Every structure is written in C-alpha cells, then in structure tokens.
C-alpha cells in the first residue's frame, strides 16, 4: 500500500464530475420518490376511486339470435345467415401503405381502389372506429382476407348475422324488413337495451314483433386499452344473450301463393297495377293469406339496399312498400251496403235529431225483410240527380232484392230513412273508422263521415246528398280492405268482429315453449239499446248476400260447385275521363259455409272469407269477383275453367290466357 499503488492509477479522476453524477442520481431518485409519495400517499386510492368511473371498462352488448318466422305448416320464411363485412380501421393503416392496401383490397373485393381510399379518407369519425368497406362478401373472400392480414394492415373481417328472406316478394308485405334504428325508435327503446347502431324491424312483423324476435341482448364488461378498444381476453360476461322468439303464421305458403296468383292474374287482366287479396277465418280472425300488389323483395333490405333502389321504391306511385291491405283506404262502394242494410233492419233508439218528416221521440225508423222501397232511375235532391247504377231501377224491392241488384236508389232512401247517426253507429259497430287491431303496423283506419267529422274537416254538416252517398259507400266513406273483410266476417260468424291475427303461435326462444295466440273479440255487434243484435237480422243478411250470387249479379260465380255468398262493390274515385266516366275500384268480399258444398247460409259457421280489391280496374265485369273465384277454385282444387269464358269480350286477356295453375285446365 505504498508507491506502486499510486502508479497503478493511470488517470486521475475528476471528483467533481463524479460528485455531480452522484448528485444527479440522488436528485433523480428523490424526484421519483417524491412524485410517488404524492400520487400514492397524498392523493392515494381516494383519487383512484374518484376516477373509477372513467373509461377503464365499457359495457358491450352481445347480439342474441333473432327469432325466425315460419308459415302455418312450419316451413321457414325467414332464416338468419352469416354475413361477412370488411372494415378498415384508419389508425391501424399507415398512410403510406393506404394506396397499396386499397389496391389489394380492391382486387379482392372487385371494388375501385379509389372508392376504398375515398371511403377511408372521408370518414369523419375517430380514427379508431372501423370504416365499413364492403358488405355481404363470400366466406371464401373473407377467409382470403384474413389469411393475408399481414399485407392488409388495418383491414378486418367482421362476422355478423343477417336476415335471409326465403320467399322473395311473396310475404314481404306481411313480414317486412329490418333497417337501422331510427332516432325515435332509439328514444323509445333504449331502456330495453337497444343501442343507437342496432338493426331493428322497420316494417311488417319484423317491426310489430321487434322485441319478441330480438330476444335479449347479452351484456359484457370489457376492459379498454389506451385507444378505448376492448382488450381481448379481458371480458366479463354479465348476462348472456337470450334468443328471440320464433313466430308461426296463420298463413301458409300455398294459400299465400294461390292468393297472389289469383290477384296477379286479376290486375294483369284488367291492365292495372294495384290490388289486394285477403283471406280470413271468420270464426277467429286468423289471417290465412294477405297479398298487396305491387310488392317488393324484402331481401333487398337485408342485402343492404342502395340509395337509388330505395329512392325508386319510395317514389313509385304504386307504393310497393305499402301494405295496401292495412295501410291504404279506399271508398268501399256497394260492399258498404251491408252497414246500411243492418241499420235498416235493426230498430234504433228514440230519435233526438230526426230526419225530415219524423218527430222527435219516435222510434228510429227501421224496415223489415218484407218492406219495399221503390228503386228508380234517379233520386233528385235539389238540383242534383243521384242515379241508379243501371239508370233504370227495378221497381219496388225488398232488402234482399236491394242487395242482390245492389240498387243504389234503394239504399239512398234507406240511408235517409235511418239517418246519419244510426248509419255511423253501425259502421262503428262493424269496425269501420278505427283500428282493426291486427298484429301488423296498421297505418290507415278509414273514414266514417259524421257531422262532427265534416265540421272538423270541411266546416259544415253533412248534406242530404252526402248522407245518401254514405249509405252506398261513396262520398267521404273510406275503408281499408281489411276493415271491410272484418265486417263481412262478423256477418258470416253471427256478429263478432274478431281481431285479425297474422301470427298463430309464438315459440319462446329460451324455453322452446309454444304459446298459441287466442282469438280476441274486438266487438260483438249490438243494437243501440245495448242488446246483442238479433241473430235473425244477420241470417236475413247472409241469405241476401247469397242472393247476390244466385241472382247472377256476380255472373257465373254461382256455377261453382262450392257455395259462395258475398257482395260486389264498384267505387268511383278521382276525375272523370273524356266520356265523363269516373274511374272505379272493384271490390268483392265473399265467404263460404263450413260445408262449402251445401247451400245453407242460415248457420253462422263460415270458416273462409275472401276479399279482393283491384284499384282502378274499370272492367265491365267485376274483376275482383273473378279474382275471388279463381282463388276459391285453387283453394278447393276445383276442375274447370276459372276464366269465365262466357264473359268473353269484357276482359280479352281472360280468353287468351293459357298458363296452367295448380292443375286447373286453362282456356279450352
């Protein structure tokens, strides 16, 4: 430890600089310790709890399996299929690689790379939010993209579920479609667990049964990373999704198909575009078929409808998206004479505001089946002539004859006789002017004009002529096709207005328990004194509607082996043509007894009622009657010529038609 020791030290060390370094270490460690003490001891866990509800976790929903829809014979009408879509997350795609990725993606997806780049660049949201590039790609392409993710940074394949509508346009008006949740739907449903990006039912059953079909979305808490993206694996499921309920309709595909076939033939034959056919069981309100033409293919919506295609649908004057059976109202025409006839046959309460020539306190006038009213070429009120439809009349008619000939002058007089109040009372009893209660989004409820209604809309009371028109379903009268069918169902079943039901049973998505929908009576017909309507009145009216057919007012409908009763309607609307003839809709609503081969309409046992409506048909023979006849022939699988060859010349296409439907022989 002497001289040689010193000689080993090759360099003198700078003690000051070492001192500065040691000081730097001390200062550094002290600074960190002080900050640590401040954060952990001074602020401490209290600050953490205060910040506890910041963004460390987020609740996410896990979609449930949407319920399916089956027809009455349990054939699926709607299924769910896997849908692959491609997204790009801008924050994961380096700018300098964007053109290369866009061109690779473009060649795989068969898209213009410029479109892809524009889509990515024009997104206004956070860079961390994926931008959808393509939808509905094939599983093969999806797999290819995932396998090549190393050259496609930021590109992801998102797997989701979408609806597959299996029947094209056959059930579209009934089933509807799904779409992006609207602001008002979100406001109404957010407490039920809906998010503002959900896809929900927007029309038809998809909308009506939205919550049942959807089931319950599951929720999970996910831990978020710095970019507020869920960290894989750190997921805490708080509730599992509950599958949605499945619906089984009262409609079966065959009935719907033949109904559509009959209607399509009818509107084609009369060279128009719009029409409705509805089939219902009068005993319980079950809807057995419902077709509104023109229709649309609901799969378009599931596949992601383009703006141009959607604009085309909503700007089409024929309103293909509208279910015209429940969403549009038309003048019911002579079919409405059922209401006037009922008002005539049922005694009313003492009058408070009597028609002319009646005294206050007297019984509201009624007729019986033997009373006659004189049909005549026209009835003149002031300067206006209210014409008989054949411009001649048939002389004195009782009510059966009045209905059978559909005499307008008979019912003008009857309407004036019973008065507006009694007429509107019975219209209300039959369900006109209000919701039918059907399990579909119903957007029209019809009009039954009263003095109050006219004051509200036209600031005047109903004129005498208008009351007369109200008695024959013209003027202000408006009804949806379904309301009219329901009224005739009430006639056919002895006085009950049932709530129409499209869905027959609901299968619980979680338990598998099937619940059958029980029929609901909307109303049981009763007279103004509160007593149920006399069964005899309805029997008389059923026999009268049978006479409509047997009198050949409906041409050869009576020649069918099955027995049909019903009523035609021809309702003028719009503006007259150059011959001063108004265009007119054609209606027929009919029903058959439980045993269709026995001509007995005294029993209220009908299980099949059909309504056909052809918008602006303008045919000489009532094409709606022919549509119903065609439907019934297919329904009962009758042999023969459905095309009414003896009316040759009225509707030329009837005789040139050669297509063979369901074993029916075409024109011989």
């Amino acid at each position, binding site marked *: 430890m002497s001289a*040689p020791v010193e000689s080993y030290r090759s360099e003198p060390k700078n003690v000051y600089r070492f001192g500065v*370094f040691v000081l*730097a*270490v001390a200062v550094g460690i002290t600074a960190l310790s002080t900050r640590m003490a401040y*954060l952990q001891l001074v602020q401490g866990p209290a600050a*953490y709890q205060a910040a506890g509800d*910041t963004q460390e976790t987020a609740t996410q929903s896990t979609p449930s399996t949407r319920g399916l829809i089956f027809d009455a014979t349990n054939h699926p009408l709607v299924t769910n299929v896997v849908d692959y879509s491609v997204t790009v997350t801008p*924050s994961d795609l380096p700018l300098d690689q964007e053109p290369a990725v866009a061109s690779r993606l473009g060649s795989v997806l068969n898209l213009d790379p410029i479109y892809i780049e524009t889509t990515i660049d024009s997104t206004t949201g956070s860079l961390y939010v994926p931008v959808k590039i393509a939808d509905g790609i094939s599983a093969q392409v999806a797999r290819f993209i995932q396998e090549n993710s190393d050259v496609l940074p930021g590109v992801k394949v998102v797997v989701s579920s979408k609806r597959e509508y299996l029947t094209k346009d056959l059930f579209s008006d009934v089933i509807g479609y799904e779409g992006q949740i609207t602001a008002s739907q979100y406001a109404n449903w957010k407490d039920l667990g809906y998010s503002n990006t959900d896809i929900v039912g927007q029309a038809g059953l998809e909308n009506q049964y939205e919550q049942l079909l959807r089931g319950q979305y599951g929720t999970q808490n996910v831990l978020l990373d*710095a970019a507020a993206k869920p960290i894989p*694996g750190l997921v805490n499921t708080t509730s599992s999704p509950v599958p949605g309920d499945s619906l089984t309709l009262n409609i079966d595909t065959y009935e719907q198909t033949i109904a559509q076939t009959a209607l399509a033939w009818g509107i084609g034959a009369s060279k128009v575009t719009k029409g409705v056919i509805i089939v219902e069981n009068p005993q319980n309100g079950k809807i057995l078929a419902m077709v509104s033409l023109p229709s649309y293919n609901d799969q378009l919506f599931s596949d992601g409808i383009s703006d141009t295609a959607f604009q085309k649908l909503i700007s089409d004057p024929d309103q293909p998206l509208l279910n015209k059976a429940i969403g549009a109202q038309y003048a019911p025409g002579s079919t409405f004479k059922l209401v006037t006839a009922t008002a005539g046959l049922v005694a009313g309460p003492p009058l408070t505001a009597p028609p002319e020539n009646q005294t206050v306190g007297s019984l509201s006038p009624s007729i019986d089946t033997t009373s006659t009213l004189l049909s005549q070429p026209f009835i003149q009120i002031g300067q206006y002539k209210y014409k008989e439809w054949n411009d001649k009349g048939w002389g004195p008619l009782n009510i059966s004859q009045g209905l059978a000939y559909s005499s307008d002058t008979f019912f003008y007089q009857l309407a004036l006789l019973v008065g507006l109040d009694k007429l509107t009372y019975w219209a209300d009893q039959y369900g006109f002017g209000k919701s039918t209660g059907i399990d579909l989004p119903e957007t029209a409820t019809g009009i039954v004009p009263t003095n109050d209604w006219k004051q509200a809309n036209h600031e005047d009371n109903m004129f005498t002529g208008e009351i007369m028109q109200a008695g024959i379903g013209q003027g202000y009268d408006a009804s949806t096709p379904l309301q009219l069918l329901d009224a005739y169902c009430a006639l056919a079943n002895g006085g009950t207005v049932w709530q129409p039901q499209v869905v027959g049973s609901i299968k619980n998505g979680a338990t598998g328990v099937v619940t059958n929908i029980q029929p609901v009576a909307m109303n049981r017909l009763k007279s103004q004194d509160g007593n149920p309507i006399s069964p005899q009145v309805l029997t008389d009216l059923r026999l009268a509607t049978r006479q409509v057919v047997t009198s050949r007012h409906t041409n050869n409908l009576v020649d069918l082996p099955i027995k049909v009763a019903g009523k035609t309607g021809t309702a003028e609307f719009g503006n007259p043509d150059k011959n001063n003839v108004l265009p007119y809709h054609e209606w027929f609503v009919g029903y058959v007894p439980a045993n269709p081969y026995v001509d007995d309409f005294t029993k209220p046992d009908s299980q099949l009622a059909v309504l056909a409506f052809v918008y602006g048909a303008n045919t000489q023979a009532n094409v709606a009657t022919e549509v119903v006849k065609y439907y019934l022939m297919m329904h009962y699988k009758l042999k023969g010529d459905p095309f009414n060859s003896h009316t040759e010349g009225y509707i030329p296409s009837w005789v040139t038609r050669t297509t063979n439907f369901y074993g029916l022989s075409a024109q011989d």
Partner: protein
Amino acid sequence: MSILRGETLRLRGWAPKAGWLAWRNYDFQLTTYAILLTLFGLAMAYSNSVGSSHVPLTLSSPFVRSIMWAVIAAVVLGLTTAFDYRWLRSLAWPLYIINIGLLILTLRIGTGTGEAGAASRWVVLGGFAFQFSELAKIIMVVVFAAFLADRQSKIKSPWTIIGALVILVPPWVLVLMQPDLGTSLVLVATVTGLLFMSGASLFWLGTLAAAVVAAVPFVWSKMADYQQARLLTLLNPGADPQHAGYQIHQAETAVNAGGIAGKGLTNGSVALPVSTTDFVWGVLAEELGFIGGMVVLILFGLLLWRLLACAWRSTDPFAMLIGCGMATMILFQVFVNVGMVMGLVPVTGIPLPFITYGGASLVSLAAGLGALQSTNLRRERPEW
C-alpha cells in the same frame, strides 16, 4: 492467428492474479441488486401473464418467456464477466459496424406494433422477437468508452465532442427511422453522460447544448404527429383524454390506486396501455404500492451507486467509462420511464431496465454488467 496469440499473452499476464484475488474484486453487491431487480421484473411478468382473471400459463406467456430470458441473461453475464474487457476496446469498431448492420437489418425485415403501425423495431428469429436497438445501447456505451479513452490526451478539444457526435449519428438516425424516439434519446443521454464523465470541455458541451436548444423549432417541425402529440399532451393532459393523454391519465390512476401497500400481485385492475413494457411501472405501483415502488427505486439507487463505485475504483479510463456509461443509461431510462408513468416527463417508448418484459433489454444489460464486472476482476490494483 494474431488474435489468438494475443489472447494467450494476455491470459498469461492475467494468470498470476487468478483465483481468490480476482473474485475479491468481483462486485457481488452490483450483481445482487441486478438480480433483485430482475426478480421484480419476473413478478411483473407473472402478474401480466396471469392477471386478475387467472389466465393459465403457457409457453408463450410473458412470465415463462421472461424466465427463459433471465436464464439466457445469466449465461451472458457469466460469459462477459469471464471475457477480458480490454478486448472490447480493440473490438469496439467491429462491434460498431455490426451494430449498424443489425439496425439496418431491423429496418429492412423488422416488424412493428404500436400506434404508429409503420414501426419496424423487432426482428423475429426462430420465434423470438429481438429488438436490436436494445443491444445498440450497450454497444454504443462500449464504442464511446473506447473512443473517449483513446482521446484522453486531448479530451478537452472540441474535436472530442464532434468526433463523438459523428460516431453517434449513424446509429441514432437508424434508430429514429424505426421510428424509436425513446432509444434515440437514450443514445443522446448516454453520449452526453460519457462526454461529461470523460472530462470533455464543459465550455464546448455548453455550446453544443445551446445549439441544440436553438435547433428545437426545426426538430419540432420534423417530428411525427404522434411524437408531437405526446409532447403536447404532457403539457396539458386534459386536452386529449381519449388518446395520448388517456395513457397518462390511466397510468396516474393506476399509481393512485396502489396506495401505500398496493393491491397485491395480479390484483391490478386499471387498464393500462402496453402494461408489460413501457407502462409496467403503473402495474408495479398499483399492485405493490408505495412500499414496493420505493424498494425498487432504492434498488436502482444502490445499483447506480455500485456502478459509479466500480467506475471510480477502475484503473483504466475505458473501464471507468463503461461504468459511467452504464450508469448514465440506466439512470436516464429509470427516470424517463418511471417519470413518464407518473406524469413527470412525456410519454416515450423507453423500457424500465430489468423490470420491463423483453429479452433484448435484459440480455443487453447483462452483457453490460458482465463487462463491468470483467473490469473489476481485471483491475490491476485492488482497492483495499
């Protein structure tokens, strides 16, 4: 052949002092502190692997990988300790060339993760991702130490500083191109510390510092957006809560949550970005609390003390500078990483030595410490 001959000669010269005398000079404290810090790192890797949801361990879990890397690091520590550090002085320039080659290789074939997306920082070899920029830190300590030791006679010349900067620029640019702002800052800090400790002119160092400050506006304009955002976020963390500021917010929340004693290992619940690497201190502070954090900070303090002690006792400027370089590098990384988590310095991707999960970092540290221990063993004159 000449290398082989040289080795024989040196071994002969060293041989008489072999055995117990050499091991008397071994700094057991230094190694002990390093091992203890590594054990903390393993604990954090375990916590990150298992988590509060008790994910089963697999071969690819960070914990299992960390154990493997710790074993490799121990082997490297032993080998570099046995290796005569004076060889490093002559090998410094070949190492420098290899280092630049590896950094170019990283840019060419590297892959990256993280917010920038375009980053290429990792080279994947046989299933192992290796970050050569970690190795670059140690190699550059050796290169600068060799350079400055060679210039001891004219150390005050401004050319010493300029020469050091010329050496710094190629690897620094390559690291920035990855882009790895953190490592580039570590390189600058290391060369600054080494210049200071080597006795370089304070006047010229001060002049250089002033020049750098003057250049700030220019550099700012060249920075990547995310780098600018991070700096801005440090100044006002509330302005951008979802992104860069969100990281700081979450990190501070995690440190808050720890309290005095912590929530216990694996019980951390505050979501942290890159919790196994850059933000590992957040996990440590939350799970081990103030007490655990202070233990680690004190261990770092002791480790730095031993590094400086080794440097002080060295008999050779090269050895001294290796010790000082290691100390500068570790101090800078500890201060920036821990300070970043606690909101004292901007967010940069700088790992916490020994604690951060990552084989390259640990193995490189082991190599550096081994070299330093090698200087201890080969000190010609014992201190006592």
